[in-house]
C-alpha cells in the first residue's frame, strides 16, 4: 500500500477527524463507530480506509469484527503536522525578513 494521502489531508474532513479522535481514546470496531456517528456503516468503512491509507490508523481482526486503533507510532501524523507547520513558519519568516529596511 502506498501512503498517497498525507495525514493532514486525511484529517481535513470533519467526520474523519471525529473518527480519529474517538480512536485515539480507545480502539473501536466499524460497527461501534457507526453507532456513535450520524453516518452509515459503509461511509464509516470508507473513512477508515482513507485514514488507514494515510498511515494514521491500523486495524486487526477480533473474531468476526475488525477493530481499528490509532497507529501508536504516529509518524505520518507527525509528518503531516510538520508539513503544515513549516509552511506557516516560512511564510512568517518571509514577512519578517522583508519588512526589515536596508541599512
Amino acid at each position, binding site marked *: 500500500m502506498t501512503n498517497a494521502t498525507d495525514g493532514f489531508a486525511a484529517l481535513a474532513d470533519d467526520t474523519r477527524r471525529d473518527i480519529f479522535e474517538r480512536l485515539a481514546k480507545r480502539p473501536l470496531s466499524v460497527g461501534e463507530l457507526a453507532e456513535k456517528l450520524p453516518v452509515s456503516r459503509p461511509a464509516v468503512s470508507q473513512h477508515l480506509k482513507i485514514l488507514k491509507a494515510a498511515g494514521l490508523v491500523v486495524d486487526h481482526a477480533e473474531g468476526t469484527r475488525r477493530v481499528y486503533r490509532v497507529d501508536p507510532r504516529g509518524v505520518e501524523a507527525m509528518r503531516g503536522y510538520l508539513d503544515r507547520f513549516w509552511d506557516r513558519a516560512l511564510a*512568517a519568516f518571509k514577512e519578517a525578513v522583508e519588512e526589515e529596511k536596508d541599512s
Partner: protein
Amino acid sequence: MSGKSVEPVRKHVVVEAPQERAFRVFTENIDRWWPREHHIGKTTMKTAVLEPKENGRWYEVCEDGSQCDWGKVLAWEPPRRVVLAWQLSAQWQYDASLITEVEVTFTPEGPRRTRVDLEHRNLERFGDAAEAVRNSVGGTGGWMQLLELYAKAAQG
C-alpha cells in the same frame, strides 16, 4: 515499522533580501517570526532563542521565566547553511535521545533576493522514539496533545 524511512518534509521560499540578512533573520532573529502556537512550556512562550554558534542551544523562554529545550545547532555556516537538531517527540516533549535534522540553505538569486530551502529529515525516528515511550510507559496519551494541534491547524 522500525527502520522504515519516511519522506522528509521539504519546503522552499524566495525572499526579497540579501543572503546575509536572510540567514541572520532565520537564526539570530528567530523570535521575530517563529509561530507562537508552537511551544512546549506550560505557560505562554515569551521568546524563541537560537544561539548563533555550533552546538548552540535552541530553546524557548516562557512567560514564567522557565526554559524548554527544542534542540541544538548541529552545523553553523553563515551565511549559507545551518543544520538544527529538532529534538521534540511526537508527544511534544524534549527527548535528548531523539535527533531529527532541519537543514536550511540560503542561496543568492541576486543581490537582493535569496532562495531558502528547508529539509526536515529523519522523521522515521519519531516512530522509533514513540515505540520506546510506549514500551516503557505503555500509554498513548501524547496523542491527545497532537490532536489538539492538528485540530487547530486544520481550522486555521
